[in-house]
């Protein structure tokens, strides 16, 4: 009986585990290994097995005497030697952080309103939130390029307003502003959905109880609604922050020369510079940084529990 039960558990959890193993763990390991190798002459990695020019045969070139010709720490030292990489990391975290914060501030009231609206409208409203997903990502980004472009009504209206008070026209496209606006736009639903899923489950009786016990409107929010919604806030923030951090298409199209993010650099290493090992180093550093942040967040979350009065 017990054996059957654990077998069943394995049958259910096995396939997803295997999937994760194959499509996440193994590529990560390959990449971690690639970070210690040299780039090949025409991209890719310097092969271990190749035609030996002396013998003219395919053979394993690496051995105890010459491993330094094949494995190196140089890619890592290169990352730390020049501050521009760390600076780009910080800038990307900054972009992703701002995006997450703006998404949170915009989504919270929206998710709350949807969660408190009559039950029959809720599904419809949620459908409207995810409606943009029905059109292609690039099309939506190009639409924003038109909106923000100098001939767009949005930019023209703003510049006309500025002209009235005597300020020179500004350019909206190809700026930090444009990148963040579109990052927020693209990721908004990923924040709204987990927040809504959380807020919808809240028991309104708790708010009545808090009010009955003397809590005014704002205190009810900060003492009851907000702490109970934290799991949704964390989930939404992770769903926005991590993809925003690795985004390269939006900065590519709207960022101009200094709108570059870490994702652009990684893409460049793999596709343009053909330096896979350094691209791998950048990816691994990014993964480590995100894991460190998640760990830090969890530690803070733990510390909050069961604190005294």
């Amino acid at each position: 009986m017990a054996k059957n039960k654990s077998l069943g558990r394995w049958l259910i959890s096995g396939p997803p585990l295997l999937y994760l193993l194959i499509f996440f763990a193994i590529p990560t390991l390959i990449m971690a290994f690639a970070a210690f190798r040299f780039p090949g002459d025409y991209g890719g990695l310097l092969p271990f097995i190749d035609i030996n020019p002396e013998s003219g045969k395919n053979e394993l070139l690496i051995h105890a005497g010459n491993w330094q010709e094949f494995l190196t720490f140089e890619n890592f030292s290169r990352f730390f030697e020049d501050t521009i990489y760390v600076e780009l990391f910080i800038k990307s975290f900054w972009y992703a952080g701002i995006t997450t914060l703006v998404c949170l501030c915009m989504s919270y009231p929206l998710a709350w309103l949807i969660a408190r609206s009559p039950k029959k409208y809720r599904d419809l409203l949620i459908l409207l939130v995810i409606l943009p997903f029905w059109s292609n990502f690039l099309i939506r980004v190009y639409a924003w390029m038109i909106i923000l472009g100098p001939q767009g009504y949005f930019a023209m209206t703003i510049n006309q307003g500025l002209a009235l008070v005597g300020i020179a026209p500004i350019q909206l496209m190809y700026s930090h502003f444009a990148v963040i606006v579109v990052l927020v736009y693209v990721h908004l639903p990923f924040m709204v959905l987990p927040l809504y899923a959380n807020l919808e489950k809240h028991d309104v009786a708790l708010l009545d109880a808090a009010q009955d016990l003397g809590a005014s409107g704002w205190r009810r929010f900060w003492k009851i609604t907000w702490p109970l919604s934290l799991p949704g806030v964390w989930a939404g923030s992770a769903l926005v922050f991590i993809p925003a951090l690795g985004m390269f298409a939006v900065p590519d199209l709207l960022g101009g020369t200094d709108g570059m993010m870490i994702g652009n650099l990684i893409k460049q290493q793999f596709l343009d510079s053909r330096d896979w090992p350094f691209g791998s180093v950048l990816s691994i550093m990014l993964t480590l940084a995100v894991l460190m942040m998640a760990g830090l967040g969890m530690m803070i979350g733990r510390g909050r529990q069961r604190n005294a009065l």
Partner: protein
Amino acid sequence: MALLEIRDVVKQFGDFTAVNHVSLSVEAGEFFTLLGPSGCGKTTLLRMLAGFEQPDSGEIILDGVNVAGVPPEKRPVHTVFQNYALFPHMTVAQNIAFPLKMANVPSEELKQRVAEVLEDVQLTPFAQRFPHEMSGGQRQRVAIARALVNRPRLLLLDEPLSALDAKLREEMQIELINLQKEVGITFVYVTHDQGEALALSHRIAVMNKGQVAQLDVPEVIYSHPKSRFVADFIGQCNLLDGTIVGIGHDRMQVEIAGVGIAETLLLPDAKVGQKGTLTLRPEKIKLAASLPLDVADEVHFKGKVHDCLYLGDVTMYVIELENGILVETMLPNSAPGRAKFFDDNDLVELAWRYDAGHFILS
């Protein structure tokens, strides 16, 4: 001056009247109960006292102040909600400290008062637990402690024991009585359980369809129900329809159709020919194989056993009178070794004193 006065309060939802011209007053220190069937407007009345609903007309006066328009958080009234509504992300101690924090009580005093009230409800060892780590009865006590800790003028309890099992409910009833005596806070208690109301209250308002059907001390509510509804709702009661056929100087004769004449207490404004209902508690009826006739002040009937219900401490006998009317009576099973005195279809005799019942004009 009463602590709480409700004057002619009406509350409507659409064209449905949930509370219909209710007036009553509650004295300071009283354990006052609103009793009534489901949907009679008890919770609505309570929510108006707490401030969550506004009366459509009428006034609520608390401590001499009309509280119309005062929001719930500003009223010196706290509520124990039916499903407790404990804050799941706070420990027991934090839950109880909540109203004190909202009142900006300094932290030293706050800790001391939380400790005191935890002691009162015997939850000191559980202070650091979360609500989901507690049993139903313990959660109940947390909810009561949380509502009491800031010493409200009025404590409202909405069916606080309805989610507990029978045994625990009895224990909690005794605890509630003691707690109320100890803290001296006025309780307004809502229940649809008549036994609970009788056991706990100083006074009871029986409600029906948004109106107060009768307001009195438990003994009077039980023994002198003013209406058929109250008689039927409170405890077991025989309701015998009849007509007044004679009036004496302190009692009157009532004809119960097809059975005979029964003597009962005189009603002040009774007239011959009026119809009504004789209410008679089962435990006030004597039952035996044969009873002496002609005992002074007694009413005497014959019947046969229709049904027996063994209830443990007593056995309920349903007796069929000559015209087919069923009367419930009960005998205590106190004699050793005996639990049943009669079997179905045994011929028996019934008797009750003229003042055992109570005639209600219809």
